[in-house]
């Protein structure tokens, strides 16, 4: 795999079992939209940035369809909690916890993210 060349100072990093993985420049993240990152073990993460600059990351795989598309969903706020709606069948997931808001039994992995 070829990694994107690093251009600006501010980087988005993801915490993977103790280590912080640098994923991309902060300005690759459009407020209100996500991007997907490929993790070293082959899994994928969906990263989001809200309008105030807070970052979130979830597993990219939509548990309802199996497709790796959560990063392409629309984000929003529901009762004060930020969420992303899957672009396929529209189930919503809490961005901070990964909990599905439309099905109690479903949760996706949430990652810690930071700007460094």
């Amino acid at each position, binding site marked *: 795999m070829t990694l994107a060349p690093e251009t600006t100072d501010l980087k988005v990093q993801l915490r993977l079992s103790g280590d912080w993985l640098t994923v991309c420049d902060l300005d690759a993240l459009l407020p209100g939209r996500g991007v997907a990152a490929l993790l070293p073990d082959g899994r*994928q993460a969906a990263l989001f940035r809200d309008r105030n600059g807070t970052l979130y990351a979830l597993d990219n795989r939509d548990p309802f369809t*199996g497709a790796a598309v959560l990063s392409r*969903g629309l984000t929003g*706020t529901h009762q004060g909690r930020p969420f992303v709606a899957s672009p396929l069948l529209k189930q919503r997931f809490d961005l901070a916890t990964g909990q599905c808001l439309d099905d109690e039994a479903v949760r996706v992995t949430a990652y810690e993210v930071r700007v460094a």
Partner: protein
Amino acid sequence: MTATPGGTPTIVLVGHGMVGQRFLEALAERGLTATHRVVVLCEEPRPAYDRVQLTSYFSGRTPEELSVTDLRFIEDHGIELHIGDPAVAVDRAARTVTARSGLAVGYDVLVLATGSYPFVPPVPNKDAEGCFVYRTIEDLLAIEEYARTRATTGAVVGGGLLGLEAAGALKGLGLRSHIVEFAPRLMPVQVDEGGGAALLRTIEEMGLTVHTGVGTQEIVTDASGAVTGMKLSDGSELATDMVVFSAGVRPRDQLARDCGLAVGERGGIAVDEQCRTVTDPRVFAIGECALAADGRVYGLVAPGYEQAETAAAALAAEEAAFTGADLSTKLKLLGVDVASFGDAHGTAEGCLDVVYSDSRAGLYKKLVVGRDGTLLGGILVGDAEAYGTLRALTGSVPPVPPEQLVLPAGAGGPAQLGPAALPDDAVVCSCHNVTKGTIRGAVTDHRCTTVPEVKKCTRAGTGCGSCVKVLGQLVTAELEASGVEVDKGLCGCFAQTREELYEIVLALRITSYRELLDRHGREGARGGEGCEVCKPAVASIIASLAPVIGASGYVLDGEQAALQDTNDHFLANLQKNGSYSVVPRIPGGEIAPEKLIVIGEIARDFGLYTKITGGQRIDMFGARVEQLPLIWARLVDAGFESGHAYGKALRTVKSCVGQTWCRYGVQDSVRMAIDLELRYRGLRSPHKLKSAVSGCARECAEAQSKDFGVIATSNGWNLYVGGNGGATPRHADLLAQDLSDAELVRLIDRFLMFYIRTADKLERTSTWLERIPGGLDHVRDVVVHDSLGICAELESLMAAHVAHYRDEWAQTIGDPEKLARFVSFVNAPDTPDPVVAFVPERDQIKPDLPLLSIGTRPARSEEAALEGSAQR
């Protein structure tokens, strides 16, 4: 055979028309179908249908859609319905009815609901080939067939309500149409001289020829006996290929006469206030065949329904009486409102008229008022907006002076006489005799919160439909009054409807979603992220208005990119495994071989699954996100542009081959489809928009299932709106007829912009048309008659759209910053998503679906499965 003594008593109904069916429902409501055997003899080849809406057959309603008979109802209540088997004799002594098939049924109670037959004046050759009447679906089928194959001109004898309707239908079939009326004015029964003049002017402007004050003396035929013309009483001769008689109706009382029941001097089976015949207490007569106790034969459906209820009540030993009914009517004749109600001709002692007339605009409004100010009746021609309210106020002293009720907007200001002004006992729906009180009760006691619920609960609004507007106002007023929070807001973020947001964006020229949310959002939503409902809805509003409010017309610019649904964000349609489909625009479905080859080459080179869509174009599936720009670079290079298959925007304008090749075609449907598709391409709207153009009435392009559909006539184009395929199909309604190219385009411009302005989010034109108060009539008033004075604005909005259109794929491939988004992984732009993989099927590919389900298995086996499947 007679009714078994001591056994289940038998009710026999003769005639299964509108009133007959209503009678059956009234029996069932009173439990009489359980205690009685019910036998129905139905003469026509189909069970009861909506005769009132008969003419809508010509604007696309099928006989099935016209039906008012729920066969489940018939079955559930054990009703024996004999279709196509009329009663031929009644033996009152033996209490037996005999049908044409020989079936004999004994009765305890006989109900005659045989309706009317059309009166045909006894002129020579009245039965010649090419002569028709206008009463049944079969009549219409015959007229349609003859008009299509053998006629270019048609004449209607009779300028009354039905005559005008018939003449409109002939015109719609592409014939030059004449109306011959013996009286000195049109609709002599309903309107007075002033109203007739206003009506005449408007009808003549539509291209119909009217001959008043002349009678028909003879039908002229050729050697084969087919109609070629008619001789009129003023000595002139009118050339015509067909004649439709619509000179009034007569009660069908022959069966009753034959068995010795008393009939009136001018026909009609004489009944008392319980609708029992005056001759035989076991026999009832209801509907148009009955001569009511007040000495009148009613030719309208509402009094018939009341009689049906009365007869059923009498059988259930309830107290009920039919003592007479109101003859109010409102109709839309060729797009002109005509209404008359109450004492329309001012026959009451000492009554006064209030008249407003503007013959230039085809307006005539008259109110008849008693000395004490009581509203007694009136006539409205050209604008019958106020009909529902006025009719309900009849008999009371209106809360504002009568002049104010008829003045048009702007001339002294119309009184805002909302439904609040109506007393509780005011009849709002006269078809089903539903009062304002009942409607309020439906909301307060039965917890109905929408017009459809109230319709279902009270039946109001399910007849002629003229009361639906007032119904809507009443429901809203009642909900608000009873403190029910009617949250019409778009979503949890905005308390406004989509329409209100549209107006805010337009008026304040707001180009940013954030600004809209922070300034106009609900308290708790301000400063937040919004949601997946309002973001695309607002994105669509901004896109529709972009050139006017000064926003970028490019949906991926700046903040707009963050608001778009996934499909719009990647300008392609997301598929179940995360790949995308690509649909280039193929206007009108017409494509040159070279372009077809380019599509084939691209699909082959990228290994895409290729399919012809239901929208007359080609879809290529299985593109990875990072392939989209490469594919589009080649498509754009070959002259293709985005087909907006992903957008809530214009999809396709389908065409049939039309006049150029087809032997039946009467206009160039392909050219018109291409013109329309190119004009409206890229137009973002509340939901997707589909269209089609057919070259003749055979309708191979299925235009009547489209949001706006166009069908060629020999004189131009007919425009249909509000059609829909999908899960809840709806035939489109005829908006206007025989339009020139320019008139057609102008009307579509207005229609689309009015829809975009007022529709709810994700509301197709079909549901919009059903929802908005006043429905099709209101839309026609606005876009055809410019009743709101906004047509110039609507046209200029569309002109701005057309002038600023740019292909968004061409824009995107020229913009490196945007192209950078078309990657699977931000940290590995060259690596494809390993979940997107394919397996072969029928010489093409399909998604590797098992791979998707592996996603839920534990991580270890998942990794193993992924290996080697990333590339295809």
